[in-house]
């Protein structure tokens, strides 16, 4: 409607100062990137990180603490950065380029190769890395540090933005804690204690953590005695025991918006972009195909990878190729049969797609088993699948597109279209979970605030205006739809499975006889 940005939404002087402070921090990074050799790297690193964090803190305090508590979305669709304007595109290009360099050309960031010392940006982070683990920084250490700083600083901003909403505050504190502790500090300390252990972020669960069953990783665990075996077991228990129980009780939100690092970044640094996710029916269709394809890919890839190295040392271990393939197929069949027996009516025509997916996986596994040799699976070199997955899904999809495109596609495009972990949790959330978003009778006014703020692109309003609870596999339970609802219509709840899905034709508040007449049909 209005092309001109309303001037009234300009930021205050104090916010301009805060922005300047933050930019100075980024500028130090830029200088380092261009190989400025700072005399005292520790000082300059502290200075740059400090001014970035300080800038964000000052900016946020001015933005939210000067106003009364409440929903703070004024001008979201006017600001260039959060409405796919020029600033949004510029930021998108910068982030995307950063990811490409990070994943594929770390030497441009100054990574020392062949034992040489780091230079450039990575060397700027050496002092912190030495402090934590005594080794030189890597591109992953730089990335991890920046990632953690982003979650902490923007997490603080988010907490101020929702200072009237304790659900939002608690889950933000939770992702800040898990990022700082589990993803950043603990792995560093684990390295100090035992430097043979592979990097392991305890909260990162297969298949999101697709390298946990890589040969180097498993060997790393196995060769480190009890602690290694305990960690590997924890990884397996996370998948098969902890995850199903927590998802049954609380929905997938316990992971996606309380623990997960990808989710943590999306909810904090990515919060300003949540409204950009597409709510079109066509986007939903694409989402369902894409995310389940990735899931199939990740399962087949992981099985193939384990299968490969199980073939290397014959018969000296109870887990042989045959035992492995039979147990995988058995497990998948068990899951499939359970769903088909107990939940077939809920799935409707989706049951057909589920069946197709299941049979594709089984056929692929059988083909692999019967055509595979020691070095070749699917007639390609063993390990090729794994590297293809690592490049296309692990790097390009989750990093370059998933995060780089925040300002274009919204903050959860990886979680929505690509994350295989989200697909598994979502599958369970849809079928075996107590979680739902309850709709409050007939109170919806179809305003669209809920849909607009759904980062997963769920058309929340489509359910709310029908008085129907929202039970969607993609919902990460961030609770922002409930927060922004002006009429108190939505509530995230864990309640009994009975009556969780409640489609109605006529809403509460109308003639009781009419409701009975129409809704029972």
């Amino acid at each position, binding site marked *: 409607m*209005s092309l001109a940005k309303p001037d009234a939404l300009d930021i205050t002087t104090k916010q301009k100062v805060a922005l300047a402070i933050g930019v100075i921090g980024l500028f130090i990074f830029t200088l380092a990137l261009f190989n400025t050799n700072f005399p005292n790297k520790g000082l300059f690193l502290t200075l740059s990180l400090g001014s970035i964090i300080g800038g964000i803190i000052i900016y946020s305090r001015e933005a939210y603490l000067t106003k009364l508590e409440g929903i703070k979305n004024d001008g979201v669709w006017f600001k260039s950065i959060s409405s796919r304007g020029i600033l949004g595109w510029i930021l998108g290009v910068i982030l995307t380029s950063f990811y490409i360099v990070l994943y594929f050309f770390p030497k441009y960031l100054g990574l020392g190769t062949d034992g040489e010392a780091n230079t450039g940006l990575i060397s700027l982070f050496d002092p912190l890395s030495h402090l934590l683990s005594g080794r030189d920084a890597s591109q992953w250490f730089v990335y991890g540090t920046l990632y953690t700083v982003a979650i902490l600083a923007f997490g603080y901003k988010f907490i101020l933005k929702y200072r009237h909403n304790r*659900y939002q505050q608690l889950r933000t504190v939770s992702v800040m804690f898990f990022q700082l502790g589990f993803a950043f500090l603990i792995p560093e300390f684990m390295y100090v204690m035992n430097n043979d252990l592979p990097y392991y972020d305890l909260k990162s669960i297969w298949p999101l953590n697709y390298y946990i069953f890589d040969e180097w990783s498993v060997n790393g665990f196995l060769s480190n005695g009890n602690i290694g075996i305990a960690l590997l077991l924890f990884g397996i228990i996370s998948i098969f025991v902890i995850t199903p129980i927590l998802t049954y009780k609380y929905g997938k939100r316990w992971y996606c918006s309380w623990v997960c690092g990808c989710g943590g970044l999306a909810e904090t640094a990515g919060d300003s972009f949540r409204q950009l996710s597409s709510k079109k029916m066509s986007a939903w269709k694409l989402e369902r195909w894409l995310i389940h394809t990735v899931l199939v890919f990740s399962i087949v890839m992981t099985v193939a990878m384990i299968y490969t190295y199980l073939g290397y040392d014959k018969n000296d271990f109870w887990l042989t190729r045959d035992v492995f393939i039979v147990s995988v197929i058995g497990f998948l069949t068990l899951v499939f049969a359970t769903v088909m027996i107990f939940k077939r009516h809920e799935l409707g025509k989706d049951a057909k797609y589920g069946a197709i997916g299941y049979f594709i996986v089984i056929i692929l596994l059988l083909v692999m088993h019967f055509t595979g040799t020691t070095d070749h699976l699917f007639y390609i070199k063993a390990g090729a699948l794994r590297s293809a997955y690592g490049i296309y899904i692990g790097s390009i999809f989750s990093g370059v597109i998933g995060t780089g495109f925040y300002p274009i596609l919204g903050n959860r495009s990886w979680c929505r279209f690509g994350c295989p972990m989200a697909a598994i949790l979502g599958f369970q959330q849809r079928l075996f979970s107590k979680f739902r978003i309850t709709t409050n009778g007939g109170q919806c006014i179809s305003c669209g605030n809920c849909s607009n703020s759904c980062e997963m692109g769920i058309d929340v309003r489509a359910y709310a205006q029908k008085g129907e609870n929202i039970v969607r596999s993609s919902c990460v339970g961030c609770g922002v739809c409930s927060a922004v609802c002006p009429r*108190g219509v939505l509530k*995230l709840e864990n309640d009994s499975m009975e009556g969780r899905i409640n489609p109605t034709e006529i*809403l509460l*508040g109308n003639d009781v006889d009419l409701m009975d007449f129409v809704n029972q049909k």
Partner: protein
Amino acid sequence: MEHIVIIGNGISGVTLARHVRKLSDKRITIISGETDFFFSRTALMYIYMGHMKFEHTQPYENWFWEKNRIELKKGFVSKVETETKTLHFKEGDTLQYDKLIIATGSKPNKFGWPGQDLEGTLGMYHKQDLEKLEKYAPNKDVCKRAVIVGGGLIGIELAEMLNSRSIPVTFLVREDSFWNGVLPQGESEMINRHIKNHHIDLRLSTNLRAINSDENGKVKSVIIEETGEELECNVVGLTAGVAPNIDFLKDSGIEIGRGVKVNRFLETNIPDIYSIGDCAEQHEAIGNRRPIEAVWYTGRMMGETLAQTICGNRIAYKPGHWFNSAKFLDIEYQTYGWVFAERGRPEHEVHFHWKHEDDTKCITIAYDKNTNEFLGINNFGIRMRHEVFDRWLTEKRDLDYVINHLPEANFDPEFYSKFEKDILKAYNNQLQTV
């Protein structure tokens, strides 16, 4: 095939069309002069505030209508010829109908104030009003002050909108406390304070005398009736309620009062012509309801009901327990059952009122002083479950039961502070002092 023509693409007409489509194969046409597609009128404010864009206020994607064979026609009906069942459009063309539904909604009230049609005056009802506001009040430099006349739900929304762009607002309210024709005193006064906390210049017991024009026919200032004070401003929002939008029906033979007169079956005096939503006026009010209910929910319910009648299952409009909601700046409000303000309160109705010390949360429970029967609740800043109160009203629970079971009705997000204990304590204390 029978042709169902609906004038108005608001919540009433669109709900009707959707339900008729579900129940039948009839040809359906929806006419609107305002917009191409259905949008949520209640969300207009969020477009100006930048929370959403216009397309986000459309509950259905644009392909929805064709897919469901609901024809959309853009145009203003200028005349209804009931003998030949023909609609005449301002644009010159005509359309035949078999059954006609008038769902044209409301238009803002104007009470003959001098200068009420100057450039820079506007209501806040139609999409065109929003476009006007964007033109006259894009920012605080173009619009140095806005004056809002009329302290109802639309008035306070307009104040919030302008406030979001830092445009100074003077809010003229005829009553001596905000919306106290509807809200009991304690609540109304809490909202007064909340409005002032947002730096909105709230003037109670204040009326508009006239709007002055500059040399170009634009709003320059307003004159206050009581004091004669002149307030300079660039925009005047006229939000003193709404009235049915039915001028085009004069001389059509359709019986008209303030709105289109309908019986309990939402039928007008002319066969095959019906009216629903804001523009329909019941011959006799239903229960405590007003003859004209200009509320989103009632429009939707009338649409749901009339669809049955149109499709051969003739049933009366018999709404269930009253409910409504609104948001006053940052404070959400819901109501279930009937809670009357001081004015118009039945003799047997008395209130229990509790307010949180932070002055943003309160509840008022109305009950019958003779029987203690629960009559209704207003809740501010605390969300309550519709389903639970609907049930309690049906079961005719008493005040004691309701107060003691309030936790069941709580609908606030998880981890929110709960106030049921405080409420119970206040209730018990009050009983002791009485």
